[in-house]
């Protein structure tokens, strides 16, 4: 058997901080075989990124490799070096870094310098390691840009990162890593920040390049779906140690370690039974939720919230010197209806207009045309025409849960202040009553009363998101708008929060508009799902119907692109390679929508509607 590219033996990394020493990686041992992909899996804080940084010796100043070896066997010259014994700024390390071992990162926007062109940054990587002049380097850069799928490599040389989409930026990162033909590529969450269809394309690209160049890949991820699709071997980490390691088959068919089994149970999957619950790794019990009675309120006859032909355009000023402006239609004639006590899932990729819709429902943005109707039992009223007392009542009835639990809580307010703020704004109750209410809210979301005097920074991501939910519940709302409430959370914590939202709904009779890009999550929580693309609702259906029979090409592409943590259901990369799913003018007939047109929704079975282009609709009529 040939020697592995990299043998990690007893690797230990310590952090020395003001609060004392902390062992991030503890005696890690694994091999990366030649030409294979090894996936390093774990929650955030499990030490997987620190391991990658240790291999490249780009650890932060506080961290140090205190024990173990990193034996790198270079297939090009047969030499073998212990990376752990090299000084971080030695010449040998510089030539390994980026030359023989390259790395790509999670956030393609921040990983590229905004001030330098793509061409400059990519050719620089080559010129550090190979003795070539700028012209040759540019030629090689164009070749590699062409290989990773840039439509016009020559123009791309002079393009700045902010002019590119997230997918293209990540392709540029890959080009930068691969231009030196490294033996090992370390990919640290390479697709976490990308949309699912883009994610599938990038994973496909990495696999293809691997076959072409014979490099090994160390893939760091928390997404078991990605692992099931691209890894050959899997190493599961928890708190700096290996919990379980083995081939993909062994890990997915026969998970031994309880941690891994728990992790698998916490991930939402498509094939779940209707009443199946996710099992979070650490279950949070809410003491008072079971015994809670829904407040007695008049129920509306129709849906509690209804959106009719909502349209919104934004004016973009392009260029600092040119001063020209053009109009972008972000939301095109969106119709939605949310029956009381149910969940409507709104799915779409970034930039499709889903957040704009939720902001218009909140009355944070005024639509160009269309209506938002809210019915509290006294008949539907147009939200954008409400004034005075009626508006205040509406604001109280509809609350928002934000995506980022870190920036949505004011770090200078205690939990008590955060949770009572809505009550103070609406002037509800005396201070004693507010105190009782806040204690009750904390119980509902499964947090301890001792949390009241603490500040948000002392809570974990999942706990903060529960604080955000408690704050949204303070005013006893009837509708919650959840904008990607779990996308910033680890899978295990995601399960906690999703379960909490489900329990709250059944206990309090809440209605949710759940906005997300994650189809599996929406499938788990929603009753009805609306798929949005480029400002259009392209398909809307009860969830069973949508997943059983997706009709619209965009929905089909979206479903096909979600990596399932089930190795018997691999991604169909060839199908996704074509691209162009999110171009309304590139959809096949009868779905094609010409620029400037709206198309029409057509009901194909009860509750299941699809958007068709105009001409067909005219023919049908």
């Amino acid at each position, binding site marked *: 058997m040939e020697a592995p590219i990299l043998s990690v033996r007893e690797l230990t990394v310590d952090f020395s901080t003001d609060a004392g020493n902390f062992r991030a990686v503890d005696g890690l041992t694994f091999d990366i075989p030649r030409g294979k992909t090894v996936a390093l899996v774990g929650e955030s804080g499990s030490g997987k990124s620190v391991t990658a940084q240790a291999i490249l010796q780009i650890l932060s100043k506080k961290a140090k490799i205190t024990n173990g070896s990193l034996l790198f066997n270079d297939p090009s010259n047969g030499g073998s070096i212990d990376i752990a014994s090299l000084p971080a700024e030695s010449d040998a390390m510089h030539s390994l870094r980026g030359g023989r071992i390259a790395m790509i990162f999670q956030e393609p926007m921040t990983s590229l310098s905004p001030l*330098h062109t793509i061409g400059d940054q990519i050719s620089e990587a080559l010129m550090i390691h190979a003795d070539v002049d700028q012209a040759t380097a540019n030629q090689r850069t164009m070749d590699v840009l062409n290989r990773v799928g840039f439509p016009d490599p020559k123009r791309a040389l002079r393009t700045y990162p902010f002019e590119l989409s997230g997918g293209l930026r990540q392709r540029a990162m890959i080009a930068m890593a691969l231009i030196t033909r490294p033996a090992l590529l370390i990919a640290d969450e390479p697709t976490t920040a990308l949309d699912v269809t883009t994610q599938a394309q990038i994973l496909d690209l990495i696999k293809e390049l691997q076959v072409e160049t014979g490099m090994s890949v160390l893939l760091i991820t928390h997404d078991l779906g990605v692992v099931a699709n691209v890894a050959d071997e899997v190493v599961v980490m928890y708190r700096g140690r290996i919990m379980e390691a083995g081939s993909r088959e062994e890990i997915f068919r026969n998970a031994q370690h309880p941690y891994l089994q728990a992790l698998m149970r916490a991930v939402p999957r498509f094939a779940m039974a209707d009443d199946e619950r996710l099992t979070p790794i650490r279950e949070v019990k809410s003491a008072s939720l079971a015994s809670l009675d829904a407040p007695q309120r008049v129920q509306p006859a129709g849906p509690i919230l209804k959106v009719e032909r909502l349209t919104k355009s934004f004016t973009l000023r392009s260029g600092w010197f040119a001063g020209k402006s053009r109009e972008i239609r972000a939301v095109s004639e969106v119709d939605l209806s949310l029956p009381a006590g149910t969940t409507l899932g709104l799915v779409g990729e970034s930039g499709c207009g889903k957040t704009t819709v939720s902001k218009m429902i909140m009355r944070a943005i005024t639509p160009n045309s269309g209506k938002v109707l809210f019915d509290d039992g006294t008949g539907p009223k147009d939200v954008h025409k409400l004034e005075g007392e009626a508006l205040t009542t509406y604001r109280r009835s509809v609350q928002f849960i934000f995506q980022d639990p870190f920036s949505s809580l004011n770090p200078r307010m205690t939990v008590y202040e955060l949770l009572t703020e809505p009550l103070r704004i609406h002037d509800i109750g005396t201070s004693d009553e507010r105190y009782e209410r806040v204690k009750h809210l904390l119980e509902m979301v499964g947090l301890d009363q001792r949390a009241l005097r603490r500040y948000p920074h002392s809570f974990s991501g999942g706990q903060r998101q529960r604080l955000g939910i408690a704050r949204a519940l303070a005013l006893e709302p009837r509708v919650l708008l959840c904008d990607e409430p779990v996308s910033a959370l680890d899978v295990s914590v995601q399960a906690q929060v999703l379960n909490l939202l489900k329990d709250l709904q059944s206990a309090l009779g809440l209605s949710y508009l759940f906005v997300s890009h994650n189809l599996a999550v929406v499938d788990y929580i929603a009753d009805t799902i609306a798929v949005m693309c480029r400002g259009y609702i392209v398909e809307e259906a009860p969830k069973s119907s949508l997943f059983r029979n997706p009709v619209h090409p965009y929905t089909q592409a979206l479903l096909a692109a979600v990596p399932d943590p089930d190795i018997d259901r691999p991604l169909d990369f060839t199908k996704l390679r074509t691209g162009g799913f999110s171009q309304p003018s590139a959809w096949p007939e009868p779905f094609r929508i010409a620029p400037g047109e709206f198309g029409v929704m057509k009901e194909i079975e009860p509750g299941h509607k699809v958007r068709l282009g105009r001409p067909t609709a005219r023919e049908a009529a």
Partner: protein
Amino acid sequence: MIRFLLRRIATMAVTMLIISALVFFIIKLPPGDFLTNQIAELRAQGESASIAKAEFLIRQYGLDKPAWQQYLVWLGVMPGPNGFSGLLQGDWGWSFEYDKPVVDVVGDALWLTLLVNFAVVIFIHLVAIPIAIYSATRQYSIGDYIATFIGYIGLATPSFLLALILLYYMNRWFGISIGGLFDAQYAGQPWTWDKVQSLLSHLVVPTVVIGLGGTAAMIRRMRANLLDELGKQYYVTAKAKGLGPTKALLKYPFRMSLNPFIADIGNLLPQLVSGSVLVSLVLSLPTVGPILLSALKSQDQFLAGFILMFVAVLTVVGMLVSDLLLAWLDPRIRMGGAR
């Protein structure tokens, strides 16, 4: 680009117009003017000949007219006693205190002021940037603490006090006089190589004294900016590419951290002119600072007005320069909005 420049120049013209109005009326706010004060004084002494001359000057410069007419004449859009002759025509008026045209009073002082301030700006950047880079890359090291400590002393020391101390000790230890911008024998002489040499040697101390506070402030801000940028992902990318530490630092985070300083150029120039008045007085530098001070005190309206307008022009032009530099350096600004 050209449209942008034209638009900017148009707004600059409007801005200058508004500033000129404000400057003029604020100077006129106190009752009376230089000449009426002088006439009152002369009257007390009973000198009728001088009074006649002063009254002639009052008529000559239209000081007996309403303030708004005086303003328009000063600006050069209304005919005065000499026809259209104001700022727009390049006639900067008459200094009553010096009894000379304004242009002769400020003359050399203007260029010397620019020279001193230019030297100060260069000094600040040359000293502050290396120290800030050292301090940021070695955060919490002994060197960082020493640089921080010296920075605080620099911030806390009043520069005129430092000027006085240096004035005394330089003379006592080295026997050199550092007052003025050149040795006494060159005053009023035409420019020769010796005079330039004398100027350069006299420039050192004022530059250090005036620049110290700015240097300390810049070290602190640059260090903070750079520390922010050092934590960014693209710096890790640069290191992961195999770039050496110095090159990676200068090409990526350092360049990013420069933006706020370029944006500051517009503010820097007027601040240095007005900020160095005390030091100029103490070191008897022939810059416009002290002239402005005395002109304001004696209500020498055309002289004060001209100097203030000069500072305003510096500010507005500095802003334009910094905007253009920013657009040139930062593609996000150049192509901003067109994502």
